[in-house]
């Protein structure tokens, strides 16, 4: 069984829990005392991931770190439909990769703002928030045009991809970092569509559809 080195309040760890739930993959969570223990920075954990960050998965001895890389692996291995990580469609695959890089941006801005506010990480909070708003504006417009084409997801497919899962938590937890989504109606509609996916699960700070 897959072991996920996990921290309950981490958006990047939640991405893996959500992906595995959507794909109906069984896994075991090993909680890492990310805060306040900084266990991921300790020598023991660095034997698992020398980079000293989570999430990390161990799939029967195959160890992989970096949140977005793990999403690629999980989808490629456990999604027989080949839709979440669309390797058979070069154009869609390229788009997915592009939006995965966009997700690095939301992680480094919106989620960084959240880490600053919640856990006291020493980031330039105003730069994080400005950067998050810039990306949210771009994504909101993008999704608005998608909706005009009758499409629901970040990529041009009729189904979600790992890019949706990579971006979703950074967006939906943004208020915790002081980044309001009030001005991004298409973004809010998209988060509701993600929440409606079969197998969707929540984490602290994320509410199920219909109650938020």
């Amino acid at each position, binding site marked *: 069984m897959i072991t996920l080195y996990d921290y*309950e309040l981490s958006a990047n760890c939640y991405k893996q829990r959500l992906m595995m739930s959507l794909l109906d993959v069984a896994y075991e969570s090993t909680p890492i*005392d990310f805060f306040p223990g900084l266990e991921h920075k300790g020598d023991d954990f660095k034997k698992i991931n020398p980079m000293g960050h989570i999430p990390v998965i161990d799939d029967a001895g195959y160890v992989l770190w970096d949140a977005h890389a793990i999403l690629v692996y999980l989808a490629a291995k456990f999604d027989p439909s080949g839709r979440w990580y669309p390797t058979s469609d070069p154009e869609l695959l390229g788009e997915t990769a592009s939006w995965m890089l966009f997700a690095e941006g939301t992680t480094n801005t919106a989620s960084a703002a959240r880490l600053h*506010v919640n*856990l*006291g990480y020493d980031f330039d909070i105003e730069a994080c928030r400005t950067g998050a708003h810039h990306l949210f504006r771009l994504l909101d417009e993008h999704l608005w045009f998608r909706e005009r084409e009758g499409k629901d997801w970040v990529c041009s497919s009729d189904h979600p991809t790992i890019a949706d899962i990579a971006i979703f938590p950074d967006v939906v937890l943004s*208020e915790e970092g002081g980044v309001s989504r009030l001005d991004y109606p298409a973004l809010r509609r998209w988060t509701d569509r993600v929440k409606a996916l079969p197998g969707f699960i929540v984490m602290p700070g994320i509410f199920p559809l219909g109650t938020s």
Partner: protein
Amino acid sequence: MTHPSGGYVIATVHNPCTDSVILDHWHPLVPVADVSLGEVRTTTLLGVQVSYTSDGAERVRVWRSRDTTEQPLPTRVDYLYLWVSLGSPPDSIFEIPEFSEPDRRNVHAGTIGVHVSAPRAVENFLDMGHFPYVHTDVLGAEPHTEVAEYDVHIDPETNEIWATDCVFYQPRAATTSTEGQMSDYLYRVPHPFCVILYKTSPLHDERMDVIGLFCRSVGPDHIEAHMFLSLLDPDNSEPIIRKFQQSIFGQDKPILENQYPKLLPLDPRAETPIRADKVAIAYRRWLSDLGVTYGVIPERAA
């Protein structure tokens, strides 16, 4: 992204507190574990930048960061935290006798920043009514939503608020739970910004787990909430215990941050209470009687 060795730096600028009642209290600055030898760190208490360090031999020093003479502020170390006062504090701090019991696990479960006033956070902590809705299937579950009648009194000797005889059905009351239980609760407010609950231990009929929420006001509507635990739990590791508590608090955080107004209104007519709010009403009145003005909207003089 790297963590700066755990130092808390909050950039938001707040005006310094002028409420003498609050200034004269002890305030939980940081967990003592975060005070390191020779390293100076800075944080914000009641709108004032303070620096802290340890000079060794458990000698902790705190001063106003702007004070070039580094005049030491009053400090004490209790219940895993460094307490500081910006005024003239009392000689003692509220008692938690359980802390010294040999079979207790005293755990600092984490410090989480929340964009809310300390009194709002305390009041939410006192509210059993939210359990089934916010902590679904852990601290509460539908249809067990009723808050039964309970008693509230103020201890005349200590001037602390106590809510007693609280009973609530909980599917998973603690890390040691194996099944749902009717939890007995006692709530206690010993300090304007600190609140403690005592709850039936799943392992002992006669003894209770102690869970404290100690708020440091960064500004009037911004806190760093320290989660303190003194548990009868010989088995679970600290990461498991912390995970449980952080998950619960993580569920409260968005609720707290969406409360409006962020400051707690003390006027009895400001919000409509229900029976479950008995202790909240007592808390608001108690704050009013103490003359607290920080983090609240004071009752207007008649």
